[in-house]
């Protein structure tokens, strides 16, 4: 059953080829057998899942889009009555008192949550090593990282321990792990999916989105979670298209741009060759490929590492040991309680980013850092706007490397930051992006990123679906987990 895609499982459940209870039991057993090697789950909820599966089986008639299929949620989505830790000691004791809107919508669609997946602490990282619960491993080589920050959701899906999963993407945290784990990952347009109940890192950049085996699976997931939410005033009130119907549209005549800045020095020749092969497939489908320019793209990481820490220093000020989360032992006074609760509760990378943010926003430095970064954000966004006046999608590698070894980059923050060179500008602009598997190098997956204009997710899903009809990279399963 686990070799089927989510869309195939939806159809098989409707035809009663198997029950949701059988399907969920199968995945529960797989998690019990295999997750020891991956550490992809923080909280595994098999009883709850089996209970929901029975309910799904008992529904008749007009059931939800995802009725009876198992999914996994990054441990950043608040889930009523379930521990929601954000992979931090700070929230190790936090049982969320409400559901994130994404969780409510997935429940309404009939999806079944197997549990909460591991990640970089507070979604700050590109390797899923900074978790309070230990590093996540990549199923293609368990000595390597799955990427991050949504590494648990990507690793679990690549090993077929779930049918689909949810991640969040602030600088590449869905697309980069999707690439490193050989699956499909979609970051929707900022505002397409509600952020209510999604623990905030950098609020003007954060966006939740799905991982699927296929672009079609991502379309099913997006269909269920997209839409305006009165609980998130930054979610956008515009109609949700029929993403599933849009998959089969012909892509003939679409124009795809290759930013010349991303194909210059620094790009690994083997990765470039894989991307070139993928371009040939798109050409064979009738797409036109042309060179474009994103002249300010090289400044995206620098601007991001001012803006994201600035927003994080503000967002994470809520963790004060008063209303929820960790409080230090025997505080001597209020100030001592704040400072020690935060210092003992947060890990190193989180503290670094809070401090960078506090500095960038402090009196005398605001113009030199924060304001300048916001202006560069405008330049990057304008670059994309110009690109979309001549192309339908922008294509690049998702990540400059395949999966790296555990501990290889964890001592050096800057080297780690550079993993997101191709993905970060997309968050600054607020655009949608998808990562699709395009092959393997030394047994490790390579991903290709496509970016489209605001609210044009269907273009990405359509291109992805048509590409995947011609290829089978996305259907490969790591041999240890077959």
């Amino acid at each position, binding site marked *: 059953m686990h070799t089927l895609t989510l869309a195939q499982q939806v159809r098989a459940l409707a035809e009663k080829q198997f029950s949701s209870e059988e399907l969920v039991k199968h995945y529960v057993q797989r998690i019990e057998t295999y997750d020891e090697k991956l550490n992809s789950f923080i909280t595994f909820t098999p009883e709850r899942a089996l209970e929901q599966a029975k309910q799904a089986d008992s529904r008749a008639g007009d059931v939800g889009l995802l009725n009876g299929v198992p999914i996994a949620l990054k441990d950043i989505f608040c889930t009523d009555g379930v521990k929601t830790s954000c992979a931090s000691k700070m929230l190790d004791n936090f049982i969320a008192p409400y559901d994130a809107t994404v969780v409510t919508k997935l429940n309404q669609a009939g999806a079944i949550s197997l549990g909460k997946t591991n990640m970089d602490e507070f979604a700050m990282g590109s390797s899923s090593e900074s978790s309070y619960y230990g590093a996540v491993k990549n199923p293609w080589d368990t000595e390597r990282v799955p990427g991050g920050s949504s590494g648990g959701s990507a690793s679990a899906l690549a090993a077929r321990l779930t049918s689909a999963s949810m991640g969040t993407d602030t600088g590449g945290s869905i697309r980069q792990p999707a690439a490193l784990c050989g699956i499909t990952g979609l970051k929707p347009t900022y505002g397409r999916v509600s952020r209510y109940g999604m623990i905030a890192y950098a609020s003007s950049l954060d966006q939740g989105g799905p991982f699927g085996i296929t672009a079609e699976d991502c379309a099913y997931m997006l269909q269920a979670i997209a839409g305006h939410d009165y609980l998130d005033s930054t979610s956008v009130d515009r109609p949700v298209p029929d993403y599933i119907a849009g998959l089969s549209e012909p892509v003939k005549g679409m124009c795809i741009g290759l930013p010349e800045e991303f194909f210059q020095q620094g790009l690994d020749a083997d990765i470039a060759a894989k991307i070139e092969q993928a371009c040939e497939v798109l050409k064979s489908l009738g797409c036109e490929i042309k060179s474009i320019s994103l002249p300010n793209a090289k400044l995206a990481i620098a601007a991001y*590492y001012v803006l994201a820490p600035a927003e994080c220093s503000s967002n994470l000020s809520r963790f004060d040991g008063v209303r*929820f989360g960790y*409080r230090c032992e025997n505080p001597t*006074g209020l100030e001592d309680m704040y400072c020690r609760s935060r210092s003992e509760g947060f890990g190193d990378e989180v503290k670094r980013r809070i401090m960078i943010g*506090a*500095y960038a926003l402090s009196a005398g430095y605001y113009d030199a850092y924060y304001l300048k970064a916001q202006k560069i954000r*405008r330049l990057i966004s304008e670059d994309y706007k110009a690109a979309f006046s001549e192309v339908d999608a922008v294509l690049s590698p998702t990540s400059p490397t395949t999966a790296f070894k555990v501990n290889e980059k964890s001592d050096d923050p800057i080297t780690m930051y550079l993993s997101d060179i191709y993905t970060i500008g997309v968050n600054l602009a*607020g655009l949608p992006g998808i990562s699709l598997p395009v092959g393997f190098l030394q047994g490790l997956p390579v991903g290709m990123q496509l970016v489209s204009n605001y609210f044009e997710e269907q273009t990405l899903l359509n291109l992805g679906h048509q590409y995947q009809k011609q290829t089978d990279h996305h259907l490969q399963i790591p041999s240890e987990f077959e």
Partner: protein
Amino acid sequence: MALSTEDIRNIAKLAKLQINADELEQYKQDLSRILEFVEQMNQADVDNIEPMAHPQDMMQSLRVDEVIESDQREKFQHIAPATQDGLYLVPKVIE
């Protein structure tokens, strides 16, 4: 931009973090390197560029002014480190 140990102490104070003496040097190095890295921004000419705070230039949306939430104080206080009589407890502030 190279930060001093004193800078680190000040930033930690702003961020309500306690950095121990033996960690100061590491933070000084790490944060200085990050600031040095972001100085790449100086390559760009940003005169007359409007700062962009948000991906969509949109207005704050308003909803109808009606009660949609119910009081859930007990549920929310259940997860607090310390409460008494419906109030959150913190160490004594006023002597």
